[in-house]
């Protein structure tokens, strides 16, 4: 197990990167403590897989260093880094049984058979694979195979970090949910350092203690799930995290108060100095918008039933504002007024939170 530090990382797949968009990964500094559960979250092409491959040693960064416990491993090959990885598509050794699959990394490292046996059985029990040990791995379902991939990492006691590259992509929703809980449980039990890469905010937020949100090769925000939800540093984070994402409304600021379409909206972070020439926006999550007797007048355009909540799409002129209401709350038929929770309504300038 180890503390992982990424120091001044930059990477480009081109031999001579020049323009900013040539870089798959722009300047990046991060430090991860031992035993934590981390997630790299972002849309496809944001650089998260590149970063994962740099940590695992499959890609050498153009610039910067990768340190495990303060030791520079930038030029150390994958097999010497003591990492484990679960891939998007399950990787199992088809010709072997489940037992042999789990024993494989230990046998390769010359560990004695009795010790292997004990370890394999312990991990198989943890993964609910003990009844399948004698079966051929090729015959298992996708979620069973993903458990084997994970198990091959867990059996080793020398593993610094276990990495997951969108591991639930090929799993059915109802099994996805079970496997997600299983991963969380395994982390709580083993306290191994785990890094989870995904585009799915629910997976990232439920799994990780700390989430790194990436966009266009840069880290936009690093924080706990609560930070990301309640205090997004950038409108991208607000939009990307949460379903539906944060409402972003264009606004003006006069005398320190924010105005949306002529309506005063108190914000949690009124600007201390004038914000001239910047694109100004108000960000508020659908969870913090409520129907009220008075406030911003809107027309209700659409209501979708999400089961435990309903998503209401309201229109003020052509500006769409979404809010969540309880599954059995009564709704006005046509027009309504909205209240924005001042504690969770924030001002953004050029996309970034005004501080």
């Amino acid at each position, binding site marked *: 197990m180890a503390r992982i530090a990424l120091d001044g990382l930059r990477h480009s797949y081109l031999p001579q990167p020049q323009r900013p968009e040539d870089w798959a990964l722009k300047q990046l500094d991060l430090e991860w403590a031992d035993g934590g559960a981390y997630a790299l979250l972002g*849309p*496809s*092409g944001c650089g998260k897989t590149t970063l994962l491959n740099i940590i695992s040693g499959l890609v050498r960064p153009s610039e910067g260093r990768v340190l495990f416990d303060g030791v520079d491993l930038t030029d150390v090959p994958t097999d010497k880094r003591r990492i484990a990885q679960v891939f998007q598509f399950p990787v199992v050794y088809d010709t072997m049984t489940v037992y042999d699959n789990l024993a494989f990394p230990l046998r390769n490292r010359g560990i004695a058979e009795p010790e292997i046996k004990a370890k394999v059985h312990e991990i198989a029990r943890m993964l609910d694979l003990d009844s399948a040990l004698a079966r051929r791995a090729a015959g298992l379902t996708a979620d069973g195979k993903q458990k084997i991939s994970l198990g091959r990492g867990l059996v080793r006691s020398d593993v610094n970090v276990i990495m997951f590259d969108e591991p639930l992509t090929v799993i*059915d*929703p*109802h099994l996805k*949910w079970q496997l*997600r*809980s299983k991963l*969380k*449980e395994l982390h*709580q039990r083993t306290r191994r350092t785990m890094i989870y890469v995904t*585009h*799915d*905010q*629910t997976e990232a*937020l*439920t*799994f990780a203690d700390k989430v790194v949100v990436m966009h266009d090769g840069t880290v936009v925000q690093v924080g*706990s*799930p*609560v*930070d*990301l*939800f*309640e205090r997004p540093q950038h409108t991208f984070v607000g*939009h*990307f*995290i*949460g*379903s*539906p*994402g944060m409402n972003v409304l264009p606004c003006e600021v006069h005398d320190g108060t924010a105005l949306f379409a002529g309506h005063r909206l108190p914000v949690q972070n009124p600007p201390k100095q004038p914000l001239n020439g910047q694109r100004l926006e108000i960000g508020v999550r659908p*969870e913090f918008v409520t129907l009220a007797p008075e406030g911003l007048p809107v027309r209700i355009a659409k209501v*979708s*039933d*999400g*089961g*435990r909540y309903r*998503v209401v799409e309201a229109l003020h002129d052509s500006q769409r504002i979404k809010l969540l209401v309880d599954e059995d709350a009564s709704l006005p038929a046509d027009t309504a007024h909205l209240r924005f929770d001042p504690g969770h309504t924030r001002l953004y300038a050029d996309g970034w939170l005004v501080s």
Partner: protein
Amino acid sequence: MTLELRNVIKRVGADTHIHETRVRFAETGFNILLGTTLAGKTTLLELMAGLTPPSAGEIWFDGKNVTGVPVQKRNVSMVYQQFINYPNLTVYENIASPLRVAGLARAGIDNRVRRIAELLRLTPLLARRPAELSGGQQQRTALARALVKDADLVLLDEPLANLDFKLREELRDELPKLFADRRCTVVFATSDPVEALLLGGHTATIHAGRITQFGPTPEVYRQPADLLTAQIFSHPPINIAPIVKAGDAMVVSDAVRWPAPAALRRLSDGPYVLGIRPHHVSPLRNGHQAAQIEGRVQIAELSGSESVIHFAHGKLSWVSHSPGVHPIEVGGTTRFYVETERCLYFTADGARIGA
């Protein structure tokens, strides 16, 4: 235009893939087929399209028996989970291809391609080839191809499953709008209960080649005919427990009991099955009529805005899904509140009482 399956059966060799099915789909709004992988969704779509003939029964469309009419002779469009486009054609040519096959005049084709491209926000991408597009754009192109020819029947086989989380959300919002003013029957297969709910319309829940229930989506969700339907249509999975009716009380365990609801008063005493969705089990008392249940916390999945808590009560393993972040100690015992008015009761063989 109505689509109707009359006593349709599909056998392949000795296996029955679709058991006798009788359903008349809705003419407006989405018809959703909800079920896990291999439940029979794709086979049903293939039967509707005419890609495979039924072993028995008839398929009626628009008042005509179309059983055995090959797919080329029906006006059907299909969109698949994989983004299927012609790789060597531009987006424009891809969208135009069904019209060229139909032998439309050049000017007419151009007109319709541009209109549908505008609708799906593909206008700036018309000159590109599929390989230069993101997954979301590729699937939009496939959708445009399906929409451009004004099909009478549009079949969508998990079209959003391979998309990034946010793109899925975006396209899920757009889809019903695209079909709003068209005269065609739409069937949409998915394995995601939340997707089914948000799309609305009508839903058929499918399990092992049988439609367990068909009706308006919110009705199937809130008033499932049987336990199987409730299980298919719950995410996270519905909590299930044996429950005993003893006089005026419903008894889960010595410590957990509540008054029997009016609908059950006349039933004979004895064992029944309780189903309660995770979001109706909360660590907080929220004003609804609730019974208390104590449980030992096994896993706590806290995202930034909600908490999923797995707990054990005796031999029962239950899940609570509630808004807000509730830091809860794993391993400790906590009290939860079950909204008794939301409880669903089933007979031992799975039929819902009061359905």
